[in-house]
């Protein structure tokens, strides 16, 4: 028999180790958060003073002080639009099919397994695929279109997964009510499922674009140039039909590539430019992610079925 004192000592000891473990957990969490804060502060201290209006309106230059990110941010913007046009319809359609239509058979199982696996495929292999397929087989060149398609395919699984989650949260009663009114499957999806899941889908779209905007490796692989001192063709022209899509086929650079280019030079002045670009990139991704988190929490609160 253990005496009461032994038991008390035993409890004390376990409480002590429990406390130590809790402290270790807190430390690891804080360490991760402090790393994030250090990164932001370190980058900002170097980069923020360099961010002036001129920085946004100048092309890259041999002189660090005169260089800017005009072609880079315009390029990023164009590539993002192309990515969104490619990935959103495809991803949402795939998500709707998998949740609302697909039957449990081997085809749907392969698709499901494949989507899980796509998350683990290194992003640079998407770049290699795009170089072989889009650039050389389909002769799209090292263009904004190629970049948009590449990043679109890269973020496709994110959009599919978030669309599915949003649709799955809609209770079956909604579907049954719609069918009871005589609506067809598509009418139910069009008028009920899609509107009710739009908040969740938006979250996925924002997260996927924030991922795409910082993605560098696949674009370097398709041969995006690092020194671009001109802008893509304007999308609006003065001759009918006034809108042209020539910009899709133009060469481009994007902000992360510009940052990489400046970072790989030995001179510290260029590193300052890299830091400034980094601050802008970081702020954009943090704002987009913050927005997605906010949207998700608001959506959850509002939807009380």
């Amino acid at each position, binding site marked *: 028999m253990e005496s009461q004192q032994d038991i008390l000592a035993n409890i004390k000891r376990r409480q002590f180790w429990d406390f130590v473990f809790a402290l270790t957990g807190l430390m690891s969490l804080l360490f991760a958060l402090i790393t994030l804060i250090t990164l932001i502060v370190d980058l900002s201290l170097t980069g923020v003073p360099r961010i002036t209006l001129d920085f946004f309106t100048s092309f890259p230059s041999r002189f660090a002080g005169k260089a800017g990110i005009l072609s880079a941010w315009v390029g990023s913007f164009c590539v993002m639009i192309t990515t969104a046009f490619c990935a959103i319809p495809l991803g949402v359609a795939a998500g709707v099919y998998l949740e609302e239509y697909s039957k449990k058979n081997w085809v749907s199982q392969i698709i499901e397994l494949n989507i899980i696996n796509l998350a683990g495929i290194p992003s640079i292999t998407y770049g290699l*695929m795009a170089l072989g397929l889009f650039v050389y087989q389909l002769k799209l060149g090292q263009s904004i279109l190629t970049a948009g398609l590449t990043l679109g395919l890269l973020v496709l699984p994110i959009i599919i997964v978030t669309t599915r989650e949003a649709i799955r949260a809609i209770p079956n009663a909604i579907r049954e009510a719609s069918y009871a009114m005589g609506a067809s499957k598509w009418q139910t999806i069009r008028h009920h499922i899609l509107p009710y899941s739009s908040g969740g889908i938006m979250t996925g779209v924002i997260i996927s674009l924030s991922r795409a905007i910082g993605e560098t490796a696949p674009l370097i692989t398709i041969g995006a140039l690092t020194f671009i001192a001109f802008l893509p063709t304007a999308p609006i022209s003065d001759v009918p039909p006034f809108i042209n899509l020539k910009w899709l086929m133009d060469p481009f650079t994007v902000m992360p590539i510009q940052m990489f280019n400046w970072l790989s030079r030995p001179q510290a002045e260029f590193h300052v430019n890299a830091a400034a670009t980094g601050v802008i990139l970081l702020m954009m991704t943090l704002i987009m992610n913050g927005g997605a988190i906010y949207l998700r929490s608001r959506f959850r609160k509002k939807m009380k079925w």
Partner: protein
Amino acid sequence: MRRLKERVIETVLFLAAASSVLVTIGIVGILVVESIPFFEHVTLKEFLTDTEWTPLFENARYGILPLLSGTFLTTVIALLVAIPLGTVTAAFLSEYVRPAWREVLKPILELLAAVPTVVYGYFALLFVTPLLQKIIPDLSGFNVLSAGIVIGMMIVPYVSSLSEDAMGAVPSHLREASFAVGASRMQTSFRVVIPAAFSGITSAYILGISRALGETMVVAIAAGMQPNLTLNPTEPAATITAFIVQVSLGDLPHGSIGYQSIYVAGLSLLVLTLCFNIFGLWLRKKFQEKE
């Protein structure tokens, strides 16, 4: 008419879903097709056993080992950082933190994974390396150590978030039973929750490993892009991904041996990632059977 429209819509949606499979087929297909000509120049034996990788030099050598050692080394360092940190953080969030706080802390932690990798490259090269040089004075300006540590920090949220999801999914009656027989929260965490969530935690680790293997920009910026057959983390080295970036930065004619070499490198990376994923699946299966 309405029925026809429904059929057409269903078909279109199915094609969209099936396109995700085409992406995989496209990636594997292109990598294989573009790699095949490479092995007309280089024997498989040379590729796997030669200790130098210099496809762009005049005296070209095609041994994948230096790239594999670089990839292996960065991944191991990253995992040494990410797995303990991520797992302990997950256990802490899941067992010790109130749900309201968890809702706030988890998304903030996930921001670590949202930071663009090129920004992490900056951080590794211009913050972590100088910091480490104060501790290890003969650390080279480009080194595997700081790249590995930074990648590790970057994948902490992948590990912690998915592990925490798995731990959160463990039914609470298991916890209550453990508390009822007098176990502390730490004992419950280690002996009940983590074993019960093992399958989910394994997939978290596997995703972390896949990320670390495929990470490109941090190593390309901070580790120096020099193929180097070494296991010394204070030296510069190149990973498979860093080599692909290095070659892509130059102008490479379609169909040249240099062009083929990046596809061979990419294929090796894909095979490596696949091996780890299959290993993870096997591990999960094996453990699930035991229960």
